[in-house]
């Protein structure tokens, strides 16, 4: 990976109870969370979590309630003290640093957005947005200026003098977001930040977040129990169950190769046609030929016979997709004694883009007989999608039902 490591957590544990050492050694010797609870009456919040978050990515930690995801995010800024393990932030171990340094990091580097918004009811929207700056002792004018800028970023500058109680849920969370943005942190921790909002507003906030992220790349750790949300905004996803991190990967990775039944169950009911793109399901199983002197109809037919196919995908010298020649057309050309491939005879089936979703591809698959060609943003051939492949993807996803 050429990406820079921003946060790296290693063998992180959190055990709630009065004698965590005992529970820790039980866990390390392979005992389960349930056994520990039964034997020692101590509950395990996070059990041996390790993963890396890269700079500038949106990393979603997903799990059902009680899976330890909210505990995990609080271990990152040590709102909860870890029992064992390390949290490396730019090479510094948050778990072991002094209180002074931790305070400094919370004030400048790592800010948090809360599910319950956690706005101060006795402060105006502007004062709330400036809260982090006030805590870190910024001058009054600077505070005001940066808070106003942050509020403008979330479209709430007109509400600066209102109180949180006057705002709707979505607006409150915008203030929560502005409060974190005003500090201009490198890392944004978002604990179920949009979960309390109704679905329409949630979508709007996700777009807002992506927009802000596009302008100014931050490392965002996003906690969610909502798979659609994770798929929509996450560059990578970690799935947690019972305090353990079960799988880490891109949304496509996890959807296509779920690590276990728990992960698979998560995806039950998810419509793969929305998430998977042409790139994910295309394959290079079909035969191609480059349009250049020396490659005639006979060469093409020989290849088709060898691979038992009925059509060949014609590319130019730079592998840019041009069109399709079927076996019938090629045979006709041979009968007429043509020695070169003729661009005029190509059947130009419109290709799909790599970024098209399965839903976009479906109409093309239905209207044509041949597998749909897929090209990248430059028009370069990237493979094809056959009906069979399409159905197989749908089936594999539904098999756990």
């Amino acid at each position, binding site marked *: 990976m050429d990406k820079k490591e921003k946060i790296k957590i290693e063998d992180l544990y959190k055990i709630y109870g009065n004698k965590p050492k005992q529970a820790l050694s039980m866990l390390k010797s392979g005992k389960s969370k349930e056994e520990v609870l039964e034997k020692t009456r101590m509950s395990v919040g996070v059990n041996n979590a390790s993963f890396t978050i890269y700079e500038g990515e949106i990393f979603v930690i997903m799990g059902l309630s009680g899976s330890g995801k909210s505990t995990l995010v609080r271990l990152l800024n040590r709102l909860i003290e870890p029992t064992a393990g390390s949290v490396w932030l730019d090479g510094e171990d948050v778990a072991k640093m002094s209180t002074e340094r931790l305070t400094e990091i919370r004030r400048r580097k790592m800010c948090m957005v809360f599910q319950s918004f*956690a706005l101060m009811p*006795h402060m105006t929207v502007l004062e709330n947005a400036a809260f982090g700056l006030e805590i870190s002792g910024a001058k009054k004018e600077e505070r005001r200026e940066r808070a106003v800028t942050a509020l403008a970023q979330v479209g709430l500058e007109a509400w600066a003098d209102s109180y949180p109680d006057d705002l709707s849920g979505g607006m409150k969370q915008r203030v929560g977001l502005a409060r974190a943005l005003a500090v201009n942190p490198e890392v944004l921790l978002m604990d179920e930040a949009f979960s309390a909002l109704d679905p329409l507003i949630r979508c709007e906030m996700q777009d807002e977040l992506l927009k802000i992220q596009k302008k100014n790349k931050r490392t965002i750790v996003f906690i969610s129990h909502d798979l659609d949300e994770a798929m929509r905004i996450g560059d990578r996803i970690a799935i947690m169950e019972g305090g353990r991190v079960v799988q880490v990967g891109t949304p496509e990775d996890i959807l296509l190769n779920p690590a276990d039944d728990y992960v698979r169950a998560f995806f039950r009911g998810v419509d793969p046609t929305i998430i998977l793109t042409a790139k994910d399901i295309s394959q290079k199983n079909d035969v191609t030929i480059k349009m250049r002197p020396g490659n005639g109809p006979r060469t093409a037919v020989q290849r088709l016979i060898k691979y038992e196919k009925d059509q060949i995908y014609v590319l130019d010298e730079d592998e840019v997709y041009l069109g399709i020649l079927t076996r019938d057309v090629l045979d006709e050309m041979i009968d007429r004694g043509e020695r070169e491939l003729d661009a005029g005879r190509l059947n130009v089936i419109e290709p799909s883009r790599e970024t098209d979703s399965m839903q976009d591809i479906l109409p093309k698959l239905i209207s044509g007989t041949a597998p749909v060609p897929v090209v990248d943003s430059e028009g370069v051939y990237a493979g094809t999608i056959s009906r069979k492949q399409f159905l197989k993807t749908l089936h594999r996803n539904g098999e756990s039902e």
Partner: protein
Amino acid sequence: MSFFDFDERIIPLDTWIQSGVDKLVENYRDVFQIMKMPVEVSLNGVVWVLTYLHPLIIIAALCAAAYRYSGRKLAVFTALTLMLTGMLGLWEETMITLAMVFCSVLFCAVAGIPLGILAGRSDRFEGFIRPFLDAMQTTPAFVYLVPVVMLFSIGTVSGILATIVFAMPPIIRLTSLGIRHVHPELVEAAESFGATPFQVLRRVQIPLAMPSIMAGLNQTIMMSLSMVVIAALIGAGGLGMPVFLGLNTLDIGLATIGGLCIVLLAMVLDRITQGMGTVKRK
């Protein structure tokens, strides 16, 4: 003698206490006399100001406070109440009572609010302080009036000390309650932005506990007013005096006007401080 023969006093606690207090009085009376100095000084100051100023100024000031924290109705009521006390010939007693209430509430707040904050932040301290608060509120005042007089001698200052003991618990309890009722996620949010414990207290917990603290202050004021008559028993002046004298001489009229003034003054102070607790934001 059987152990369960409860007619006998097996534990002579009463004599122990008697001799203990006697020893205290014998050896440390001077110390206690010095201890009452701050109360004495502030009381004398307040009494001097209240009796030196022209009644009209005091009426105007209280009316202004009533208007500021409540409204025109209470301002009118305050004016009428104070005029009445004056016309009943109890103006000076009313001022002394006001000064006593002010002083005892001042000391209750100065000691009680920090103690309440401590109790709100620490379960252990809360557990430690609770039995004391219970004792302070439920011990009949007559029980500790005698030792107070023995140690501090009679007079208005002793009356205030007895009042402080009785009136302090509500402000401690309600301050603690207010701190405890601040939503934990607000405290967590403040901490997540790097707030120190003191910053959390100053910017989040105390402002949000303010209504509860003001309710505590209000209760403390009401309870110190209710001690006025009892304090009069040990020579404290003020509106308790006419009531006490009236009782002793079977002068029902005198006792009633004293009582009436206490009640009206209580209503005025209660409404003003209640208004303070719910100050409207701009």
